[in-house]
Structure formats: C-alpha cells, structure tokens
C-alpha cells in the first residue's frame, strides 16, 4: 500500500522542467531509493513534497487522504513527513543538544513560551545523539562539528522526529545522507535507516552510491530529466539498459 503518491506533479524553472508530470508511489514501511543523474529532479521532488518550493501542476496524496496541490513547509510535519537536506542545514550557532531539543518541544507559540526542556526530552535527546555517536559533542556548537558529524546531527534530528511526542513522523526523506561520510559513519547511518524501517517508517532515500542502494532499498525509482525512467526491485531496475545509459553512463 502506498503511503505517498504523486499525481502528474510538475515544476519548472524559467521554462525548464525539473519535474515533468511525475506520477510515482512510495510504499508504506519500505525503503525506496530515488536515484538518477544530477539534475534529474530528485531533490526538487523532495523540496516539492516538503513545501520548500511550490508545485506548478499536479498534486500528491498522503495516506489515501485528500489531494494536496499546495503545502507550506510548516504543514508537512502535520502529514507525518520529515526530511534532511542535500546541503546540511543545521542551526549552526546553537549547541548540538539544542539542535535536537528544538524538534522535541512544543510547536505552539504560547505553550512553548511556558515550556523548558524536561527530563524526558533530555533522555530522548541522549538516546538519539548516542545513536549517531554525538552525545560527547552535545555541548559543542553545531558549526564546530566536522562535515561528517554535521551530516550525522542532521540524521539525528530527523530520528528525533520518530519520537512519540507530538509530531511523530512516518515518512522520512533523506537527501544524500551518505555523501562525504567515512565508512564508520556510513555504518551509523545505515543502522539508523534500518532502525526506522523496523519501526514501520517509510524512508525515501536519495543516493548516488549504488552499492548502498542495493543493500538498503526494497524498491527504487529512477528519474531522468524530471520524468520516471524506471522503477522496481533494485537488481532488476539497475540491470535495465536505459537505466545504465542514463544513470551509469554505460
């Protein structure tokens, strides 16, 4: 069963189509790899589905409910969606711990005014930061972390969204979470993604590393020039001639 479906979704920039009438589905509780050459529309699709940029045409449906043709960024978590960014976007001049607390506490203006972080927030933050091996760095400013640690903190932040407090997310868009990571850090991210799957979460993974795609994904969708090129089980799709031509350059 699809938890998220796009229906002829379209986005163009100055007449150039980044996403062109794309209709794809993402199955609940599975890890779907979203792959394609640079400029194929993968990150644009994530940005459209998380309200970071607005859709020009078409719509999408979450959990078979109403069709959505416009979504604002602050509304996406109401639909159980969370994400990382292709370029890491942390709250740089805030401590690591605060980068996690901020997604655990209340969203309402007035409730948040009378709330400070509590023991259970700290326990949850500790759990998350230990999973991404950043607990020792909890009091460091995010800007002082290494590139890999910054990536891990962003992963930790979305992991905190699968928390059982308020905005518990079901759909996780991870935009190139392995880029620039050392092997041991990759293992941590693989562990987090597998943990999310065990929890029944849906993960949509943008990734260029085909070995990781083969290892992790239940299903892959290949985009090219904003259109669907192929989809299916990784080994089947990756052996298709058109995929190799477009993506692997073989």
């Amino acid at each position: 069963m699809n938890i998220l479906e796009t229906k002829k979704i379209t986005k163009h920039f100055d007449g150039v189509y980044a996403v062109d009438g794309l209709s794809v589905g993402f199955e609940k509780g599975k890890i779907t790899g979203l792959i394609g050459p640079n400029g194929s529309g993968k990150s644009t699709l994530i940005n459209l589905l998380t309200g970071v940029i607005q859709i020009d045409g078409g719509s999408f449906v979450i959990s078979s409910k109403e069709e959505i043709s416009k979504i604002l960024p602050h509304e996406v978590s109401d639909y159980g969606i969370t994400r990382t960014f292709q370029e890491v976007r942390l709250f740089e001049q805030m401590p690591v711990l605060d980068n996690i607390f901020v997604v655990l506490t209340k969203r309402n203006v007035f409730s948040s005014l009378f709330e400070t972080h509590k023991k259970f927030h700290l326990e949850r933050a500790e759990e998350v930061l230990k999973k991404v091996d950043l607990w020792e760095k909890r009091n460091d400013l995010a800007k002082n972390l290494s590139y890999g640690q910054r990536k891990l903190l962003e992963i930790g932040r979305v992991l905190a969204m699968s928390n059982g407090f308020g905005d518990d997310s079901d759909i996780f868009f991870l935009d190139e979470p392995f880029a620039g990571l050392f092997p041991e850090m990759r293992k941590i991210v693989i562990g987090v993604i597998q943990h999310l799957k065990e929890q029944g979460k849906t993960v949509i993974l943008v990734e260029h590393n085909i070995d990781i795609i083969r290892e992790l994904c239940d299903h892959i969708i290949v985009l090219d020039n904003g259109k669907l090129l192929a989809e299916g089980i990784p080994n089947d799709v990756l052996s298709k001639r058109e995929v190799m031509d477009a993506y692997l350059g073989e």
Partner: protein
Amino acid sequence: MDYFVHIAILIGIYSILALSLNLIVGYTGLLSITQAAFYGIGAYVTAILLTSFGMNFFLSIVIGMIITGVVSLAIGYVLSKFDGDYFALGSFGFNIIVYSIFLNWQSLTRGPLGIPGIAKPVLFNIDFSNNFYFLIMVAVFALLVYFISQFITRSSFGRVLKAIREDEKAIEVFGYNTLFFKLTIFVIGAMIASIAGALFASYITYVDPTSFALSESIFILAIIILGGLANNKGAVIGAVCLVILPEALRFVGFPSDIAAQMRQVTYGLILILLMLYRPQGLIGEYKL
C-alpha cells in the same frame, strides 16, 4: 551625585531598550531598525495621557504598551513579507514614518514644539520627582524586563527563535509556523520598548520627535552589537558602556573649541575598533 544618578537612570532606560531589541535582533535574527518608533509611541502615549487627561503614570504605561502592541503587530506583519536586508530597510522606513507622524500630527503631538510639563509619578506617598527614587523605579522596571527576557530566551519558545535566526526554512519543516513566532517576539519587544519610552517621558518631563529619530534606533542597535547579541547580560553591558563612554570622554581634556567634535570622533573610532577586533561584541553568543 545628581549627575551619577542621572547617568544611572539613562543606563536603566537604555538597558530596557537594548533588552527589547536583543529579543528581536539577537535571538531571532530580525535586523530591526525601528525600535525608537516603539520607544517614541510609549513616550508620547504617557506624555499625552498625563498632560491632557491627568492619568495615573502606571496606567499610562499599560495603555502605551497596548497601543504599541497593536501598532507593532501591524508593522511586524508587513515586515514579515521581507527577509534579510529588505527587512532592515523596511523597518528603517517604518521608523521614518512614525517619526514623521510625531513631527506632523500637530493636534496630537504638538509637532516640533513637543509636549512639556509631563508630571513625575507619585506612588504610595513616594514622590518620584526625587531622582534617586526615580532611579529605583527605573531599576525595578529594568530588572523586571531582564527577568522576562531571561524567561523568554530560556524557554522552548526562545530556542525556536534562535533556530529561526539560524535557518528559518529548516525549522519550518519541523512543524513551526515561524510567522507566529516572529510576530510574537516583535510585539513583545515593541511593548517592552514602550515602557522605556514612558519612563523617559516622565523623567525628562518633555518629549519631542528628535528623541525618537532613526539615529536613536541605530544607537540602540549599536548597544546590543557592542554588548553582544543573543545575550541579555550583553545588552545591559552594552547600555552601560555606550551611555558612559560619551560622558567619560568629557574628562579626556580635548581643547574646548573642538571638544564636542573630538568626543564624537573618538566615540566612533572606539566602536569601529571594537567591531574590527571583537565583532561578536563583548559577551555575545551570536555574530550577525
């Protein structure tokens, strides 16, 4: 002694202004250059209510805060359409508009003539005409504002403000409607500034538009940048430094015919050097 009490009262008033602006600029990252407008509205409301209606000073503060709150909500909503430098320019424009209203709505503000004869408050037989008592009152207000600022900035709300400052789009996708947070802190900051205005009007016993010009907003901004953004103690330290500094330069011994100009030059030079060698301010936690 009176001179030192006078300086301390000014430090108190500017501390309140700096704390109010620090919530908006330091914690939320909204480069607002319109705080003098809210300061002025608070001052004019108190001046008008006390001179024309004989109203109680403390009640005038509350009414001033309400009026400033409504005006700042409208201004904040318009400014929410802008980002970054455009926000700063827009806020700049609002300060000029409010200043022009003070200057030209003569039937209400008496324009450039200003409003003289503003009474000092009396509370439980304490006559605040005595500057020492007035200083105690200003100190009580400044402390109250300091603790409110601490309360706000240590709450989850305060953490969201900092996240907005760092990356508004990123915090939005985690379910925060940042417009509400930005408007709330803008209005709170403006209402606090109006308290400083009421105290100023009552202390000086006279208001005119020149006290609330754009240069005053820039001065308040300089205080928080010098003291250190996103740090409430920094705002107070900045106010102490920038109120005392020009006064201290009186004792440097410049030749009398150029003393005033030299004080301005030295004052400017010290600010430039500080920004060159300590851009985060004296105890700042955030760099613009």
